[in-house]
């Protein structure tokens, strides 16, 4: 089935090593998200797996078979692109049918599979339209339809939601997760959005400068980040980092406290500060507090906590939830 193993995979463009060397195991049926800031090599890694780029060194093993030198078409993978990459001159029907046509399937089989895919994706009414007559969300569904119709070993998604507006993005996120539960096929999903990563993944691979910083389940990464980079990247708003005397008190070079793990009080606490900006979301309020001798800290409090700009507050970190890091930025456990 759709297990994928990367052994020592590297990619060098000229003198620049985009991916120095990566080892990774993806199990059959897993939903794996590659996440990281732009330029971290996550899309390149996906393209290496797809076969759209050649590896400089190492092996890519799909379903137990070494596919390193196989062209994309022979790897049994499907891909959904950021720009949708639909064929503009073909109808929705022909777009979805294209991979089957290339595989030389019977016309009757193609028709049936296209109808099935269209039903799953609510595209039945649009089968005879051209891509330009569809909205962004519908186009994205067609791209997904084209990917599922061939029943691949695994699906590759390259930032598929970044061209959609916020509301649609949330919907499509849910649809892709549901599709994964339905099909139970391996999915590799690339995004720079840690919220997408947290909400969709079985396993998150955090990448930075072509290296894997940490691999784990969303909650693993949230609760036990291996280093400062993962701690800062996963979670929104970002984790607060404090060094100096307050960190030394915890026997660490730097300590990290998530905004939701700071307890706020108007009378007493560990650190005193003044409220700079208060962002009211209704359910929650994000407070940007200028703490004396520490700097700006972000705190997440209940929406009922009445506070405004200029108020004095006290912050206390939940001692069970303080993350400690050494001078190299690695977690101390």
């Amino acid at each position, binding site marked *: 089935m759709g297990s994928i193993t990367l052994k020592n995979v590297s990619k060098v463009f000229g003198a620049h090593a985009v991916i120095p060397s990566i080892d990774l195991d993806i199990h059959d049926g897993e939903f794996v998200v590659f996440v990281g800031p732009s330029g971290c090599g996550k899309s390149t890694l996906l393209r290496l797996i797809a076969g759209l780029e050649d590896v400089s060194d190492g092996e890519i093993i799909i379903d137990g078979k070494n596919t390193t030198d196989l*062209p*994309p078409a022979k790897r049994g993978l*499907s*891909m959904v692109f950021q720009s949708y*990459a*639909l064929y*503009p001159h073909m109808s929705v029907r022909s777009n979805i049918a294209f991979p089957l046509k*290339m595989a030389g399937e019977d016309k009757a089989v193609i028709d049936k599979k296209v109808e099935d895919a269209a039903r799953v994706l609510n595209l039945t009414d649009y089968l005879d339209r051209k891509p330009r007559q569809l909205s962004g969300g519908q186009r994205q569904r067609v791209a997904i339809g084209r990917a599922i119709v061939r029943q691949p070993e695994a699906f590759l998604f390259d930032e598929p939601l970044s061209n959609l507006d916020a509301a649609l993005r949330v919907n499509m996120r849910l649809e892709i997760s549901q599709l994964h539960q339905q099909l139970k096929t391996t999915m590799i999903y690339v995004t720079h959005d840690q919220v997408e990563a947290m909400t969709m993944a079985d396993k998150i691979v955090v990448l930075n400068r072509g290296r894997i910083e940490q691999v784990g389940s969303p909650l693993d990464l949230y609760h036990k980040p291996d280093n400062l980079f993962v701690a800062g990247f996963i979670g929104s708003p970002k984790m607060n980092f404090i060094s100096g005397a307050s960190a030394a008190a915890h026997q660490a070079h730097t300590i990290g406290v998530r905004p939701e793990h700071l307890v706020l009080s108007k009378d007493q606490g560990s650190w005193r500060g003044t409220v700079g900006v208060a962002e009211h979301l209704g359910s929650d309020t994000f407070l940007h507090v200028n703490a004396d001798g520490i700097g700006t800290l972000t705190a997440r409090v209940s929406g009922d906590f009445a506070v405004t700009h200029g108020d004095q507050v006290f912050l206390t970190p939940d001692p069970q939830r303080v993350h400690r890091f050494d001078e190299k930025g690695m977690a101390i456990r």
Partner: protein
Amino acid sequence: MARNVSTQRKLLTTVVAWTIAILIFFPILWTFLTSFKTEAQAIASPPVFLFFDWTTENYFEVQSRSDYFKHFMNSVVVSFGSTLLGLVIAIPSAWAMAFAPTKRTKDVLMWMLSTKMMPPVGVLVPMYLIFRNTGLLDTRTGLVIVLTLINLPIIIWMLYTYFKEIPGEILEAARMDGASLAKEIVYVLTPMAIPGIASTLLLNIILAWNEAFWTLNLSAAKAAPLTAFIASYSSPEGLFYAKLSAASTMAIAPILILGWFSQKQLVRGLTFGAVK
């Protein structure tokens, strides 16, 4: 903010534009008018413009002296043949340069264009000898080959420009969907580039139709296209202006009509990519 253009200014620019247009069109109009004059009126001084004895005699005369239809067919075969052959070679070439460029791609493109800068007469003798020795002299095949060769740089350049506009991700999607290189070109690239390919085709047919240097030098009787048909009426002696004009009108009419009907395609082709 819209520019404030006065009526006077508009009138002035309109008059200037029309004057330039008429100046450019005038030689064609004059040729057309001359073709309906008698030989004496054709060289009359001062020249007569519209008020002369209109006659179609020249056209009958030209047709009876030389077989227009044979030359016409030669022109059709040579211009369409060379264009189609050119496209078959140029589509894969332009694909390679647009979607799989290397460090040297720009140099290759410039080198191809540079061949157009060379005066053709510089290679006339070797070309003539090659054609004579290979038996291609005065054959349609020979003309198709030579016109393909001289227009290939332009075809490749035009297609390259169109292909550059096609997002590479769509071709990658085709590759992921299991298309081989040939299928990718046939099913995805070519249909998407049809407007570009069509205008390249039209422009190149016009270029090949009007090409006179090689067609005159490498053909004599059998394969001679319309350019040779016109040239046969330009004689240093005798009165041939009216007949020459009639022959010219007959030679340019087909391509003018083709150009007229495909105007939209041509304008789009020549300004492609200028405005997005």
